Structure formats: structure tokens, C-alpha cells
């Protein structure tokens, strides 16, 4: 699991990887902030710390490719090109949100971007990814679907059925596991007798690799290989990115929790994927500290505008919105 260097990757790609991570980070940090001020209803599962996985994975995809997501889906949508305003509006339950306020954090989605939805049911997004990949193959396109899922979700049946079916049907699907070592408040080793989720790939007959999930280049290069393999019609593969969530399972508490030690959190925070990458980039003279700060400032401003937009946006109107969108009215 050696740390990859950026060598050989075109500069625009490196800058793109950086920007995607920064966009996720600022959206999530600000979302956490306003949530702790009580301005965001419902449950909130922040992606902070895992940015390299969504960024590295989605950077290897085309706009027309699809992804499926989880309950921790904000980062995936941002990495796939999600619009801050419509996201913030959705998280606040506003009519201008991606889902008109009907979905919220756990169901935010943008089918136009090929983001087939965050999902409230652990593992349930993976069978849906199988269907999207099936459609790509059925239509004879070379489009690829990437399913994001957590370590804990690989213990549930839906994941298993989907992985086996994708391999049996030889579908263009990439299984991207975010192994952050915990399922909610329970450590991986207490609910799984294996260390590497990637070991599960052989059970289905697909290649499985482990990468440093705090190293965006490592994730990106593994993703490119898996995506190209899928495009060539050679079937699914699995990538396990070892990563960590800096905040709690839900909400914004990071430290002082009983189920994991502050030491552990600090050790992982010391390998912040954005800081690591910025150090690499400045050392390689690809992006100076100053230039990096400029990216952060731009993105931070964009997030604040998005929050403002969301705050100003109207709530959905029960009289007109509550019972619409249950069925599609058009027949064929």
C-alpha cells in the first residue's frame, strides 16, 4: 500500500482531484457547522476525511457514467459534479433542493449527473448499480457504473447478491469500498473475521485491490484501471480504500467518543488526504500553497453563497407538493 506519487498524471487531472476534495471538505464542514446550529433537520452523515475516495473514484469516470451511493452520500454527489445550492437547499428541506425537499441528506441525488441517489438502507444501492451497469451493457455503450459502499455494508445480503450477479453477467461495474474501519459505533474487527474487504472479491471471481484511501492519487490510479477494464467489457473489479471518517457516524462530534480513541482519530487526521496531497503538489511545484489557498477561498465562498441561497429558498408547500411525485402520470 505504498503511497503513490503524482508523477505521470497530467497537471489538469491533479488540480481536478484537488478541487474535488476541497469542494467536498468545505461543503461538509460548513454543513456540519450550520447543523450544529440547528439549521439542518434530520440525520447527517458527514464525509470529512474520506474525500480522496469519492474524488479519486469519480475523477476516473466520465460525466455520462453512473454512481450509486450510501447514507454518507454528499461527497459522492459533489465529486460527480453536484451543485452546492441545490444540495444545501435539499439538506435544509427547501423546495429548491435536488429532491424538492422530499429526500434530504439520505436521498439526495441527481440522475442527470448519473448520481443514482444516496440511500438510507445499507447495501441497497449496490443492486441498483447492477441494474445501471446492465443497462449500459444492454445498450452496447462503453459506459461504466461505480458503486460506493462502506465496509459494514459488505456484511449484508444485498451487497453479496449484487457482487455475484455483476460478475456472473460480466457487467461494467466498479465496486468501490470505503473501509473506514467502523460501522456506526462498532469496529470492523468485531463484526468481520477478515481485515481486508478486498479479500471478498475472489468469492465472486473479480480482481480486488487495497489502496491507501487517504492518497487520492492511489485511489485515482486504481479506479482508472478498474474503470478501463470495465469499459473494455472485461467485467467488474473491487477496490478497497482504507480511509477514516474524521467526525462521528452522524453529526459533527469528532473527539471524546467512547467507541474509538482520540489517539486513533488524531493519527488518522495526521494523514488528512487534502493536506497530504497539497504537500505533494507543492513539492512537485504543481500547486503552490498560495494557489491552494486560493482554491479553498473560492470554494468556501461558493459554499457560503449556497447556504445563503438555501436559507432564502422557500419551503415546499404541503398543499401543492405533499402528494405529487408519488407516481409518474404519463403512460407510454
Amino acid at each position, binding site marked *: 500500500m505504498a503511497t503513490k506519487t503524482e508523477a505521470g498524471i497530467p497537471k489538469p487531472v491533479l488540480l481536478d482531484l484537488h478541487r474535488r476534495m476541497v469542494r467536498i471538505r468545505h461543503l461538509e464542514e460548513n454543513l456540519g457547522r450550520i447543523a450544529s446550529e440547528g439549521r439542518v433537520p434530520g440525520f447527517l452523515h458527514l464525509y470529512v476525511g474520506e474525500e480522496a475516495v469519492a474524488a479519486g473514484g469519480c475523477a476516473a469516470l466520465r460525466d455520462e457514467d453512473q454512481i450509486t451511493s450510501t447514507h454518507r452520500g454528499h461527497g459522492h454527489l459533489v465529486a460527480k459534479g453536484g451543485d452546492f445550492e441545490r444540495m444545501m437547499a435539499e439538506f435544509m428541506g427547501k423546495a429548491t433542493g435536488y429532491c424538492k425537499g*422530499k429526500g434530504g441528506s439520505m436521498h439526495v441525488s441527481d440522475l442527470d449527473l448519473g448520481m443514482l441517489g444516496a440511500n438510507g438502507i445499507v447495501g441497497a444501492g449496490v443492486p441498483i448499480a447492477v441494474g445501471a451497469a446492465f443497462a449500459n451493457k444492454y445498450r452496447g455503450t462503453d459506459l461504466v457504473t461505480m458503486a460506493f459502499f462502506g465496509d459494514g455494508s459488505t456484511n449484508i445480503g444485498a451487497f453479496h447478491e449484487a457482487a455475484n*450477479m455483476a460478475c456472473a453477467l460480466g457487467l461494467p461495474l466498479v465496486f468501490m469500498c470505503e473501509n473506514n474501519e467502523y460501522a456506526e459505533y462498532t469496529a470492523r474487527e468485531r463484526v468481520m473475521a477478515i481485515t481486508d474487504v478486498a479479500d471478498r472479491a475472489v468469492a465472486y471471481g473479480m480482481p480486488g485491490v487495497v489502496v491507501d484511501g487517504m492518497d487520492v492519487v492511489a485511489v485515482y490510479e486504481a479506479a482508472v484501471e478498474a474503470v478501463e477494464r470495465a469499459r473494455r467489457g472485461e467485467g467488474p473489479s473491487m477496490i478497497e480504500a482504507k480511509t477514516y471518517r474524521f467526525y462521528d457516524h452522524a453529526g459533527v462530534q469528532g473527539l471524546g467518543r467512547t467507541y474509538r480513541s482520540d489517539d486513533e482519530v488524531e493519527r488518522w487526521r495526521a494523514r488528512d488526504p487534502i493536506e497530504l496531497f497539497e504537500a505533494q503538489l507543492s513539492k512537485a511545484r504543481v500547486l503552490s500553497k498560495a494557489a491552494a489557498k486560493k482554491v479553498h477561498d473560492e470554494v468556501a465562498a461558493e459554499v457560503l453563497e449556497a447556504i445563503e441561497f438555501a436559507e432564502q429558498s422557500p419551503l415546499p408547500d404541503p398543499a401543492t407538493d405533499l402528494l405529487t411525485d408519488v407516481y409518474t402520470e404519463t403512460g*407510454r
Partner: protein
Amino acid sequence: MSDANGDSRRIITYNQAFNEALHGLLAEDPDIFVAGEDVGRYGGVFQSFAGLNKAFGDERVVDTPIAEQAIVGLGIGAAAMGLRPIVDLMFMDFVMVAMDQIANQAAKMKYMFGGKATLPLTITTTGGAGLGAAAQHSASLEAWLIHVPGLKVVFPSNPYDLKGLLVSCVRDDNPTIVTLHKAMLGSKGEVPEGLYEVPLGEAEVVREGSDATVVAIGRMVGFAEEAAETLAGEGIEIEIVDPRSLLPFDTATVVASAKKTNRIVVVHEAVRSGGIGAEIAARIQEEAFDYLDAPIGRVAAPFSPVPFSPALEREYLPDAADIADAVRATLDR
């Protein structure tokens, strides 16, 4: 076949009606495909899918692993991408294995996404008892399904409706579930050759009558017709309403019949407690309260799993005699 007058009517089985509807649909629209266990090369465990794989190939008539969650998920993802999947769950009992994908995912996706998703997904399955298939291969779960906003649910009682409802479901842009009753697969009826639609949400008055209304679904419609003959011999004329589609449900037609006959019996094969008969009865008394001369009766299975032994199963299942008794009881009041 031709009758004496030489005008030819096309009589085929319930299972054949299903099969020819699929042949027609796959020929009509390249976006339609079929996936499920043994539905491909083998043609399905009841041969309901016979010939499809040969005619349309492995790509469009797909054999899947035993994985009901992934089978429905395959349909959801493909439908979200604009295809029109028909996925099969061999026995309705297996709906339970895939319940999350059906009720939490397929049914809710459009709403959760603020209307953006369109899911022209059709799920086919075989329900019902009567074959000595015991407690895990005889399910009647329509009551669960009508409790799920976002789904459309049909339960055809004859070959004509089966073909027309299946066509309507596959052409509909919402997740639909078509249940075949496995004890009816060989039952015959007149069916036109080409594709046609039986509209979703339209009940049919199968028999007109003035003394009482029997609302029966699926296989129970045939039993109701038997009961009607018996009762006619006693001078009792019942009206029979077959809802055909359970969600959306044609409350208006049922209520109109209730207002006409003033006495109602609702019949289904599932157990009474929590059955669809409760919902139908609740709606009738809500909308026709002042017209009712007697409590709305329910004929349904008693409260136990489906027994294996035919000696028990025969008694367990509602039949024409049970329906006739219930009608007499409501008239005796």
C-alpha cells in the same frame, strides 16, 4: 376453436396468455427485457417464459442467480436508466426476500428524488395455494402491496385480463406487480391475438345481480361465479365485481354496486386479518354507509399458515360453497 355458428373464438390458457403477451411486448419494444431465475433457456419453472430466450436471446431474456434482492435491484437500476425491465420472482413468497428493494427502493425512489426518477419496472410472480406446495410456496401478499405508495398492483382472474393487464403494466411508467395464481395456469379463456390493454384501476362487473354484491379477486372470481349459479337456483341473484387491479383500486364501481344491492361480501384467498378485504370493506362503509342493509361479510382463509396436506388445504381455502354461505348469511339478516 369454432362453435356451431362457425364464428371462431381463440381459447388459450392463462399461462399461454402470459407467454404471448411477453412475446408481443419484447417484439414491440427493444427496451423491454426479462430477467429472473430459470426464465431464460429453460423457459421458467412453469414454462410461462417458454420460447422467449430462443426468440430474443440471452441478452434480453436473462437467467439470473438465486438472488431476489439483486433481481429487483437489476430492474430498478435498469429502469432508472430508461429501460423497461420485467423481472420475475418465481413464487410470491419470495417477495419477502426482496421486500426492501420492492417497497423501500422501487416504490419510493421517485418521491425521494423529488419526482426525477421514472421507473417503468414490472415484477411478475405466482401466488396462491391449492397445489400442496405448503406454507412457503403458497403466498397471497396483495394486502402488503396495496399498503405501499408508489406501487401498482394487479391480480388477474382470467386469461383475457392477464394478458391485457400485463401489457398495461409493462407500458406503465411506474413499478407494477403482476401476480399469476399458480392454480389457474391451465385455466382457459378467450384471448385476442394481438396486444391490447386492460386499463389499470378499472374494475369489471362480471355478473349483474340485484340481491347482493360479491367483490372477489384473482382465483376467487371463478368460485364466485360457481356460487352465483348455485344461488341462482335458490332465486338469489348476486352481482360479482372483479377489481382486477388492486392498486389503483376502482372504489367507484364497487361502491356503485353496493348502493345497488345493499349487501356485500368480499372474498380473497389470503388470511382475513389484515387482508385486502378489510380495506375494501372499510371503503364501502365509508362511502355507502346509508345503503348497507347488513354488515359487509368477508370470506377469506382462516388465521394459520397454508397447510401442506391436501386434506387440510382443501378446507383452508375459500371456495364456492363458502361464498354461497356468506351470501345467504348476509341475506338472512
